[in-house]
Every structure is written in structure tokens, then in C-alpha cells.
């Protein structure tokens, strides 16, 4: 929120052209990337899932300033909700229009469950509690196979129904208008639509009464209270909104993969989503999207490049690509934090926060 809100309609030609260009690129992207192999379309889909997650976490961390290290729990809740309601595990096969809202609602409810006891915590203390919460959810998922088998334990849940609208399933390849669409390509468009919807919600929330209340809490909670903001409700709302986006992403993950197990929801995942938000630029939607895409795509890209490169140079694989991947990842993080501490594409507010000593701070 650099400038005040303008409610004027009508955009300049340049902006419209830009939007049209981005639209065309997004529309043909899976086919261009698909030339290099379908696995790249799958990577692209995962990048979109991470964009959803990062945008959701950005509401909690970026907008409201509440450090959440257990965000992946909501992703897990969404994924398992879809898995349990649309798989042979319980023999339930509910349609998407029922499961998706249920997943979102249950994840949102878990958001409130996490938020309620942590209302008075901030910073480090909140981070530790949320970290514990994330682990609790994962451990529950691992162990809830006895005495009643709910989650099927560490084996996870198999043969989950794909996203289906009537008889139209997203899992199979099909031909429309003479163009062959593969399963991942179909999912791409579905995920893109959801991402755009989440994006719209985030952008509009940020420039609203609620968004300002979140900013107020992030800046100074006591002043926010004294100015009449019900900090309890506004914080819980941030947790619930963030969690519900995570839930939506989780549900899509389960539908797309057809398989969920607790190991997909480890602490490392929470941390990498937080990295996406921080690296891109906390509280700045375009920055967060950039961070998510970069961090989601970079490991795959490195995996594809590092091994052939070593073959070419040394004639053999000397360094394990997995190992060097983490090395590059860490190096990238250190460099960004050193040279662009506010993130790759920070918001104006965040830049100001880090420009210490310049303003007469109270």
C-alpha cells in the first residue's frame, strides 16, 4: 500500500496491453514448457501450488506480521480432507464442489484453532508455538491409524479421486478443438484459475479496511487496540484466511497426486514456504509470487542442469545433484539476504522498515 486507494475505473492502455501479454504467456506456457517434457508441466503445477501457499502465508506473515512456522499443517489438513472424502479408504467419493469448500472450511477452522491460543504471542514465541502445531498435525497424521484407522498412518492414502467436473476428469489426456491436452496441462489451467482467484482476494483485502487493520496490528498492536481495532478477531481472521488458502492448495495437491502421506508435510516444507515469502518480499503480492515461482522451480531446474553439466565437464557425476541443490539453495538465500534484505521485490512499506536511521523513528 504505497499510495492511497484509488477507486477510479478504467486502466491506461499500457496496463491493458501488459495484462493481455501476461494472459497470452500464461495461456500458452504449458505447451511451450511441455516441449521439454511433461514433467516440466508438473513442475509448473507445483509452482502454482506453492504460489497459493505463499500467498496464503503472506496474509499471516506479511500482512498481519504473525510469524507462522507451521503453515504446512493447513496444506496437510486440506490434502487429507480431500483424500478422506474422495478415495476408497472410506469408500467416499464426494464431488469436488462439496470437498473443496469442506477442505477450505476445515483448514480455516484449524487456522482459528491455532490462532486462538496464540493471540497474546508475538515474534519468536509465536514462531515456536506454530512450529509445534505443524509437527502435531504431522504426527497425528502418522499415528492416527490405530485404534481406528483414520489416516492410514505412514503409508498414506492411495488412489485418491482426481478433480472431476461431472464426467470431465482432469487426470486423463483429451483432445479439444484438435489440440491434445494432457492431464497436467488441464490441471495447470485449473490451478491457474484458482491462483488468479486467490490473487484477486489478496489484492483486494490488502487495500481494504481489513487489510489496514492487519497492517496496524503488524506496526503496533497496542496502538491498534487503542484505535478501536478488535485485535482478537482481526488476528483470527488473518489465521483463518491464510489457512483456508493453504487448505485449497492441499486439496488440489491431493487431487493432482492421487496420493498423500505425512512425509509431504514436514517442517522443511513450512520453512521453504516461509522462505518464498521472505525472499520475494514480505507483504508484497508480486514479490511473494516471484519468490514462490523461483524457489519452486529452481530445484527442478538445478536438478536438470547439474547432472548433465557434470557429465560434460568431468565425464562423471562427482557431486550428488541433491546435495549441490541444497548448497545452491542456501547460497542463493544468503546472497539475497545480504544484498536485498527486504526481498527480491519488496513493498515500499517493507523497504522503509529496513531503511533504519533515515527517518526520525519514534
Amino acid at each position: 500500500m504505497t499510495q492511497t486507494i484509488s477507486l477510479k475505473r478504467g486502466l491506461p492502455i499500457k496496463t491493458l496491453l501488459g495484462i493481455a501479454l501476461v494472459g497470452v504467456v500464461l495461456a500458452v506456457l504449458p505447451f511451450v514448457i511441455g516441449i521439454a517434457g511433461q514433467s516440466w508441466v508438473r513442475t509448473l503445477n507445483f509452482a502454482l501450488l506453492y504460489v497459493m501457499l505463499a500467498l496464503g502465508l503472506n496474509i499471516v506473515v506479511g500482512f498481519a506480521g504473525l510469524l507462522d512456522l507451521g503453515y504446512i499443517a493447513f496444506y496437510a489438513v486440506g490434502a487429507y480432507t480431500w483424500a478422506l472424502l474422495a478415495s476408497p479408504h472410506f469408500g467416499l467419493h464426494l464431488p469436488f464442489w462439496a470437498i473443496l469448500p469442506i477442505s477450505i472450511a476445515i483448514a480455516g477452522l484449524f487456522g482459528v484453532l491455532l490462532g486462538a491460543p496464540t493471540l497474546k504471542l508475538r515474534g519468536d514465541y509465536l514462531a515456536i508455538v506454530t512450529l509445534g502445531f505443524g509437527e502435531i498435525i504431522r504426527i497425528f497424521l502418522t499415528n492416527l491409524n490405530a485404534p481406528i484407522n483414520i489416516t492410514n498412518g505412514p503409508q498414506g492414502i492411495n488412489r485418491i479421486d482426481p478433480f472431476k467436473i461431472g464426467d470431465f476428469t482432469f487426470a486423463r489426456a483429451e483432445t479439444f478443438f484438435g489440440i491434445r491436452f494432457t492431464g497436467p496441462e488441464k490441471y495447470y489451467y485449473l490451478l491457474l484459475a484458482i491462483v488468479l482467484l486467490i490473487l484477486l482476494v489478496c489484492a483486494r483485502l490488502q487495500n481494504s479496511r481489513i487489510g489496514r487493520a492487519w497492517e496496524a496490528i503488524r506496526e503496533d498492536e497496542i496502538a491498534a487496540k487503542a484505535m478501536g481495532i478488535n485485535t482478537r478477531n482481526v488476528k483470527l481472521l488473518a489465521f483463518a484466511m491464510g489457512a483456508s488458502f493453504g487448505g485449497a492448495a492441499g486439496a488440489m495437491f491431493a487431487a493432482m497426486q492421487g496420493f498423500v502421506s505425512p512425509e509431504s508435510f514436514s517442517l522443511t516444507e513450512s520453512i521453504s514456504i516461509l522462505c518464498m515469502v521472505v525472499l520475494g518480499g514480505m507483504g508484497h503480492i508480486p514479490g511473494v509470487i516471484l519468490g514462490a515461482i523461483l524457489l519452486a522451480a529452481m530445484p527442478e531446474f538445478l536438478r536438470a542442469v547439474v547432472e548433465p553439466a557434470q557429465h560434460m565437464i568431468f565425464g562423471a557425476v562427482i557431486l550428488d545433484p541433491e546435495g549441490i541443490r541444497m548448497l545452491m539453495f542456501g547460497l542463493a538465500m544468503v546472497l539475497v539476504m545480504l544484498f536485498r534484505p527486504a526481498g527480491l521485490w519488496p513493498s515500499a512499506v517493507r523497504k522503509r522498515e529496513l531503511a533504519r536511521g533515515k527517518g526520525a523513528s519514534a
Partner: protein
Amino acid sequence: MSVLLQAQGLSKRFGGLQALSDVGFSIETGDIYGLIGPNGAGKTTLFNVLTSLYIPESGTCTFAGETLTGRKPHEVAGLGLARTFQNIRLFGNLSAIENVMIGRHIRTQAGVIGAVLRDKRTRREEAEIEARAHALLDYVGIGSRANDVAKSLPYGDQRRLEIARALATEPKLLALDEPAAGMNASETVVLRQLIQKIRDDGITVLLIEHDMKLVMGLCNRVLVLEYGKVLAEGRPADVQRNPKVIEAYLGAGAAQVAETVPGATA
């Protein structure tokens, strides 16, 4: 004149320190009510108790016919008691206008659905919030700084921005915690005019201040606190002559001198 705020027997203890003991007073609508006392007398503690940031051990407080004690801070703001802070607490990284717009939160309704759909009502409300915020910045005299970052404003402007933000909540009672602290003489004159204007526009003012000239010239009633107890209460001229007050401020010897030389402390 009707009583706007009535406090009775307020006590607040921090560990071994009795910050407030049995404090009672009443503010009438239209007052500029001064709250003075030496450092550490409990003035700010009293502010925090009134605005529910602290919960008093005992005592009651009624405001405009409603009980204040036991309410949440945001409810107190909702009832019409807004405040500023001694150590300025602006939303430092946001612009001046955003700070004031946040003050409108309690008087507006738009929720998540309104924000996402951006329907006609929400758009109208947003436009109103923005217009009102601009008007308030003009009112306190920093209209030209609307888009400046709050923490980059000069000190005096930050104080005025805090007043504008508090006024945005449409208070019946505006509580100012040392608004003139750190201001130079000419800034204080402007501030004094502003406080008078606020009162003339129908808002009762409660004022903590160390600048005695400002307090004595502006307030129509004054409460003196010392060690958390009410030392004196009344019209500024009477309080000024009260030997106990002189003693608290200047020491016992001064009180004796003052008794023999009336008006020596003005």
C-alpha cells in the same frame, strides 16, 4: 453541564509499587481537564487504566452512562474515548493518511466479503474514509503531508498526526498524553489553538502535560496526582495556590514562601 467521565476509587499496583491508589474524579462535557503531577506520579498509568490497557485492582469508571471497567481497549474506543501516547505510537511505516484511515476502523463496517466483491457500499465507504482522513489531516494542519511516511514526519507533526488519528474514531473524550512534549514554543502555541478548537467543536479533552503555562491557560479544571494519590483537584487558579501542590513540585520550603507571598508560583 453533564458528567461525561466519572472515576471512583481506582487503584493499580505493579508488584510493590502502588501506582494508583483510590483515585477519583469526574470530567464534565466540554471540559479541558488537566492531569498534572511530578514524574512517576501515575498520570500515564491512569490513562492506561481509563483506556483498559491496564486492568485496575479496584475502582469503577463510568463514561457517558456506560461502565468502562472490565471492557476491552477497542470497546473503550468504540464508546468514544480516544487517546494519544506519551511516546508516540504511530503506525510508523505507513503514510500519514493511512494512519488516520486506520482510525476510521471502528466507525466503518466493510468485512472480507465487501472487500473482495468491492460492491457499491464498500466503495462508497472507502471513499468516505479517505475523504474524512484528508479532512482530519487538514484540521490538525498537516494536510500537505498526507502521503509522507509517518515516522519521517517532524516530531511536532507526528504528535498532530496522532491527534488526527484519535479524532478519526469520533471520540466524545480525547485523552492527550503530553502532546506538547518536545515541541518548541511556537509549535506549542499552535497546539494550544488546536486543542481549543477541538473543545469548541464539542469534544471534551483530557490532558496530561508538564508545560504548566499550557495547562494553566488551557484547562478549566485540573487534577494533581502524586505517588498515585489525588493531591488536589479544582480550578487551575486554586490548585496553583494549594500549598500541597507547591510542596510536591518545588519542595517544602517553597510552599512556605508561597504562603507568605501569594501568586509567587505563577
